[in-house]
């Protein structure tokens, strides 16, 4: 007579455990489960749009700050040119002087 494999025994046990789990009826969803899901989705959407609004506010402030700084720099540049108009020769001379300064001091 053929002797049983030791693993046959544990396989049988496993199979009986699996089949017991298969026969176990699943729990039923409680009354109002679908409403609970849609409520949490609605809350999530409301929070997301609130976050979006807050992000929009931050974005607006950043844009405002950037435009203000850019406008201030542009205004300074225009004022400088208006107060001290330079001819192309002046510009060339100034650049040469800066170059010489760089070579001498660095």
């Amino acid at each position, binding site marked *: 007579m053929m*002797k049983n*494999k*030791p*693993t046959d*025994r*544990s*396989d*049988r*046990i*496993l*199979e*009986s*455990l*699996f*089949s*017991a*789990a*298969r*026969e*176990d009826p*699943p*729990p*039923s*969803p*409680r009354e109002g*489960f*679908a*409403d*609970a*899901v*849609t409520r*949490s*989705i*609605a809350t*999530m959407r409301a929070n997301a749009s609130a976050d979006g609004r807050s992000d929009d506010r931050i974005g607006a402030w950043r844009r405002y700050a950037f435009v203000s700084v850019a406008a201030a720099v542009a205004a300074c540049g225009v004022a400088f040119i208006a107060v001290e108009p330079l001819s192309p020769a002046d510009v060339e001379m100034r650049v040469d002087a800066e170059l010489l300064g760089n070579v001498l001091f660095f």
Partner: protein
Amino acid sequence: MESEDLRLVRAALAGDQRSFAELVSRHERYVFAVVSRHVPRDHVEEVAHEAFVHAYLSLANYRSDAPFKHWLATIAVRRCYDFYRARRRREVPLSELSSDGLELCDAILAPRSADEARRNADQEEARQILGLVLERLSPEDRMVVTLIHVDQRSVKEAAELLGWTAVNVKVRAFRARRQLRRLIEELDGPGAPAGTDHDEEQTDGSK
């Protein structure tokens, strides 16, 4: 049935929340059934809830070429996997079994036919013992074992649900089953015959 699902999906995508609620009502029992195969009873509702929320967020990705139910099952199975990944694996000593559980083990482990053992096994206790041994597997192995042996899905189906390759699922299923056998033999006690593959070959006398 499926076209009704599709209509509800389209309405939900257009912003109609009631349509999504209708979809949840239509499939909640099925999702509970899928989830309850994998996670403990007291977490089924929580995981099913997460699955539906995730389904809502991914609704735009749903392709009508597959049934909505299958798509939902994929999401539910992956949420179950996430549940185990998020939870730290608990190494419960097998000696932690209650006296009832030990009695049931004895009943199952007694030499008799599988049918008789199954008849005698109280389902809830059997679930507890199965839960205890599954707790020792990695989340990946646990999902594969449950899908193939409890849910009785094919390797291909399990691979599709988990988003893994069939080879990966097959290898994991084989290794996990071997590990489960060892755990059962551990439960069986030191006096029981050893269940290593080596012993199996020798006892069988096939080598």
